């Protein structure tokens, strides 16, 4: 084994003045062993960097997936729950108020359950946020947690006065409804929009093509190949086992990341198409149904001066079912959902909506014709064909459809999580292998100089 000729190490004696590390390195760089050492250090550094950056890239994706599964996904459900519970609570409380002293135990229980549900979901939403998000004066969570107790206080005051036959009860009920419609529900809607925005953002973070990881991996590969070309030219060896192993590790790492990520992308796309897009369509329809129910009840509470509520009802009804009853948000949800099971549920909701709309027509006819009692009866009692029962049918059909769509979303996200499981660890191990291979490979050459 003959070492190539190198310039003799005479520099030290020639220029003693700028003694220091830089000079030493400079001298070292002029010797082949020196170059090899630097190359080894460089390759280790590159391996570590490739490992770290790839791991960070994959971890970001994995965190986004975790968020979808445990944070933004469930939180968007919680936000929707808050809206639904509050809206239903207000419609129930005003309905019970319409019933006068005969407020039924069922209605009371339903109102209390709605409030309990809203508070439970609100606690989940609050716990998931930083304290600063909650305390910011205009944040929806500050509004919701601060004013929900005011609302329930007003409803109880209204109820106590109503029980004593005092007209001021109606004023408290109106104040409560006004608080709900002007502050609480808009805050709940804002919260829902924020959370669904978060879901969409996490889906982008989790599902995009891994440009960054591929770029880093290719750079690592290029450096390794470059090192081998250099060694081949300067040491007359064709193969270096250590560096080959390192190159192999880099290739495996790159392929692993690409394949795992493409799997994740597919699942995330599915979670969007089969899950969140349908959830959004169904949730919009449900919110419209709830609003229509509130409008229907408040029109009667206003007794004669409820034209604004009825006008709002008509607008919401058109949005929910379209002008002909076979369009609008329900039709959109019907066309959007993918499983036959869910589509069946939406069809149930459409059918119940058509019937509810007919009942509403009867209610308006009674009320406009002066038969207020019959209108109230049809609105809050009316048995299985009354507005209350029809509304419940629409709401529970949409509720079922939402639950099963939410399940599809969760399944896809779980699958995506599985696809990426272990990738971070694998990438780190492969990076260590890359570094070790590089060091061993260069050490082989370096040994030849001793």
């Amino acid at each position, binding site marked *: 084994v003959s070492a190539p000729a190198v310039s003799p190490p005479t520099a030290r004696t020639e220029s003693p003045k700028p003694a220091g590390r830089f000079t030493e390195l400079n001298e070292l760089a002029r010797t082949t062993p020196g170059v090899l050492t630097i190359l080894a250090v460089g390759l280790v550094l590159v391996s570590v960097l490739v490992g770290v950056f790839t791991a960070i890239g994959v*971890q970001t994706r994995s*965190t986004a997936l975790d968020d979808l599964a445990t944070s933004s996904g469930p939180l968007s459900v919680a936000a929707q729950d808050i809206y639904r519970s509050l809206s239903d609570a207000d419609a129930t409380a005003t309905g019970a108020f319409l019933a006068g002293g005969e407020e039924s135990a069922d209605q009371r229980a339903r109102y209390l359950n709605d409030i309990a549900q809203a508070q439970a979901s609100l606690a989940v939403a609050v716990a998931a946020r*930083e304290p600063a998000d909650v305390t910011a004066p205009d944040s929806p969570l500050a509004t919701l947690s601060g004013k929900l107790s*005011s609302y329930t206080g007003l409803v109880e005051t209204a109820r106590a006065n109503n029980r004593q036959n005092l*007209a001021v009860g109606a004023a408290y009920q109106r104040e409560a*409804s006004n608080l709900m419609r002007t502050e609480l529900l808009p805050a709940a809607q804002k919260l829902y929009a924020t959370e669904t925005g978060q879901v969409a953002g996490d889906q982008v973070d989790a599902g995009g093509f891994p440009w960054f990881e591929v770029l880093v991996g290719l750079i690592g590969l290029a450096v390794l190949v470059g090192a081998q070309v250099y060694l081949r030219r300067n040491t007359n060896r064709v193969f270096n086992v250590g560096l080959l192993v390192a190159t192999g590790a880099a290739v495996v790492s790159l392929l692993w990341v690409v394949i795992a990520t493409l799997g994740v992308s597919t699942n995330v796309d599915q979670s969007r198409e089969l899950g969140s897009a349908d959830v959004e369509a169904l949730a919009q329809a449900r919110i419209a149904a709830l609003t229509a129910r509130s409008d229907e009840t408040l029109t009667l509470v206003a007794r004669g001066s409820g034209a604004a509520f009825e006008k709002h009802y008509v607008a919401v009804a058109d949005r929910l079912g379209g002008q002909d009853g076979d369009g609008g948000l329900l039709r959109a949800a019907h066309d959007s959902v993918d499983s036959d099971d869910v589509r069946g549920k939406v069809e149930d909701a459409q059918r119940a909506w058509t019937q509810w709309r007919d009942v509403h027509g009867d209610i308006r006819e009674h009320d406009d014709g*002066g038969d*207020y009692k019959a209108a109230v009866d049809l609105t809050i009692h009316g048995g299985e064909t009354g507005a209350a029962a029809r509304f419940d049918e629409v709401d529970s059909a949409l509720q079922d459809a939402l639950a099963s769509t939410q399940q599809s979303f969760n399944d896809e996200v779980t699958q995506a999580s599985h696809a990426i499981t272990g990738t971070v660890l694998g990438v780190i191990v492969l990076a260590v292998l890359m570094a070790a291979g590089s060091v061993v490979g260069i050490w082989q050459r370096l040994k030849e100089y001793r």
Partner: protein
Amino acid sequence: MNRRNVLAAVLGTVLLLVTGCGTDEAVAPAPAKAQVPLPAGAKVLTEAPEAPPAQSCANPTYSLRPGPLPAPTALPAGSTMAKIRAKGHLVVGVDQNTNLFGFRNATNGEIEGFDIDMAKQVATAIFGSPKLQLRILTSQQRIPALKSGEVDIVIRTMTINCERLEDVDFSSVYYLAHQKVLVKTSSEVDGIGQLDGKRICATAGSTSLANIPKRAPKAVPVQVADWTDCLVMLQQNQVDAVSTDDTILAGLQAQDPSTEVVGDSLEDEPYGMAIAKEHTDFVRFVNAVIEQMRTDGAWADAYKTWLAPRLGKATQPKVEYKD
């Protein structure tokens, strides 16, 4: 720095980057302040509401002389009453929140009160039985509802004045009320003069609201949609007093024993039933119904049912006619 330390630092940094954890800043709870909700439409007026114009007409309370009162089956063809009869019911603009005058009985859900009894008398004169459709109106909605024909008649604690006479016609005075002040018993206020700088509540568009700056120029008027909203605001400590007709105040006081009606009469408030312009036949017809109540005791019965327990004895006000 030895190698081990470097390694530890690098690993630490990597771990931080990978897990995304940082140190959380400690957050002290922000000072929170309760915001008591306001009734829908409540507004503190920074500028005084328009002062009631000086009575620009002579004797606004003088209505048209009563016409004949035919049997329901013999109403003159083509008359306003005949048209209402053909429609099937009398549409009356009323209040649902003024205790004793027009309010919802929470037990049976019906609207009751002195004004409703008056409406029943008018409807009975047209149909032979009280065929009513009640339309709830806020103070401000009264005149527009008449102008648009949405209601046939408004019987809703409505004070007769010249300004309103430009838009609608009034029946003769069916009730004479006096504007006073309602305060909490604990307040030690015994008249509107002691309310400088305090908030006084009245409904938007009412004469009571317009009278506040006249009697208490330094008080702050607060307007709401309904009289019960004033009681809500008084109970929530958002206003210091409510000022309006003693009849309405008595209805509010009946709902809260910790309040009292105080002071001398600030204004006379003659109530009339409002009817759209150009239905003089209907005005005369209604005035005849009011006259009939004086003789058949219907007014006294309604007064005894609703008002006598709180306002003491009274008789139906004397009325005068312009022609």
